[in-house]
């Protein structure tokens, strides 16, 4: 209730401000003003509780989860994902790795964990809370996903190929909307996602709190929702397809400073 009221107040302030109306992109100011009102810290706190909570058949917490920097090492870990993990033989993003840790450390089943991968305004999902908590601890770190291992090269190459792969009932590819500079879908500006300058400020701020829906959103959700709008079948959570697209976009953003979790309109 409180957070909605604050967000509304921020939107109202923007509407009434004459200076904002003169700006090129109204969203820049809108996002700036909503930043102070967004309850990011509260979400991160819930994420921390879930990280430390003993759960599953093995009654274990996630505190020994290895996100690539060693068991339990969270500082800067998110900024170095996706990357290749020897124990699974796969290139994994944060969310896939969290699922892996829940399965291996807590003894939970994939089906149970992924029963509700994406939450809503009433209740974010466990993976969303955890993503916010883990990502926060990479704030200020350079984005540095894996690019050297052959599997990482493969993931990038597949992501690049999928980016312009026309598919689905309506023949779209990622480039239908995100292949050219300065396009809009309705009133929303579309970033050209194969351009490092345009993609890196975005990758630097995911996962995020989305003001318009009062919900937490992650990159797995972003890919899923794009495919939904493309009228394809549903991509499987953490699949090679989704992880390769995330790898492609993140490698394009390499070198930028991670400044999330972010706020989206």
């Amino acid at each position, binding site marked *: 209730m409180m957070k909605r009221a604050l967000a509304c107040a921020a939107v109202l302030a923007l509407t009434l401000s004459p200076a904002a109306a003169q700006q090129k992109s109204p969203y820049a100011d809108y996002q700036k003003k909503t930043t102070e009102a967004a309850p990011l810290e509260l979400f991160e706190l819930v994420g921390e509780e879930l990280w430390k909570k003993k759960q599953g058949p093995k009654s274990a917490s996630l505190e020994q989860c290895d996100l690539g920097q060693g068991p339990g090492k969270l500082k800067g870990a998110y900024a170095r994902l996706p990357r290749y993990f020897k124990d699974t033989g796969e290139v994994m993003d944060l969310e896939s790795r969290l699922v892996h840790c829940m399965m291996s450390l807590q003894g939970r089943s994939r089906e149970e964990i992924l029963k509700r991968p994406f939450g809503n305004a009433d209740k974010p999902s466990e993976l969303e809370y955890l993503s916010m908590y883990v990502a926060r601890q990479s704030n200020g770190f350079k984005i540095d996903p894996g*690019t*050297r291992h*052959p599997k990482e*090269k*493969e993931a*990038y*190459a*597949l992501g*690049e*190929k*999928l980016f*312009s*792969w*026309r*598919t*689905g*009932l*309506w*023949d*779209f*590819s990622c480039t*239908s*909307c995100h292949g050219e500079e*300065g*396009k*809009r*879908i*309705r*009133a929303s500006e*579309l970033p050209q996602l194969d351009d490092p300058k345009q993609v890196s400020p975005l990758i630097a701020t995911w996962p995020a709190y989305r003001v318009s829906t009062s919900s937490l959103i992650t990159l797995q959700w972003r890919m899923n929702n794009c*495919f*939904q*709008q493309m*009228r*394809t*079948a*549903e*991509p*499987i959570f953490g*699949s*090679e*397809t*989704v992880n390769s697209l995330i790898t492609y976009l993140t*490698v*394009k953003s*390499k*070198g930028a400073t991670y400044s999330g979790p972010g706020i989206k309109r």
Partner: protein
Amino acid sequence: MITKSTLGAAVAALVLSPAASAEPSAREVQEILKRDFRPRGQAKMDRMDQDAVQRLCTTTNNKPPADLAKKLEADQMRTIDFPKGSLMGNWKEGAKIAWSGQGMQWHEDPKLPGGGGCYNCHEMSPQREAFGTIGPSLAAFGKKRGNGIEMQKYVYGKIYNAKAYNLCSEMPRFGTTNSLTEEQIKDLTAYLLDPASPVNK
């Protein structure tokens, strides 16, 4: 004189460029998609099969050789079922269909009428300011071009199957994919061509 930043860019390009051998073949990509997607609601797995148009446009980066494009466009033209008589429906209904972005998604009820989502990409009526720019502006479309039977046929056909006119167009094939009904496409045709439609005001 090589500056630090150009050197950095060169190193980055070297590191970022994937080895040529890492690139998957089209067949591999198709198999990966078959494995990594699942049917949900009305969105079945057949949506992941590339047809000849999607395949050619993907492999040629939307620049197909002219002769091949012509041949495939003719094939697409044959999918269009032109009704007899006037193709102008009710522009008021067309206005709603043009604005609605619903339809054909896995979470939606397939029994509900779908929209055309026209405003996602096109400017149309001056009353609607939230229009996209992926497609060309259609403002005053009929006013500029008239609304004779040939123009009606072009608009109806273009909405029914845009690939019959421009093989690698980014516009969906609304009729061929059963995303819009014959009546809905007629209503949209009227929305673009009827002199009373706000598009032509």
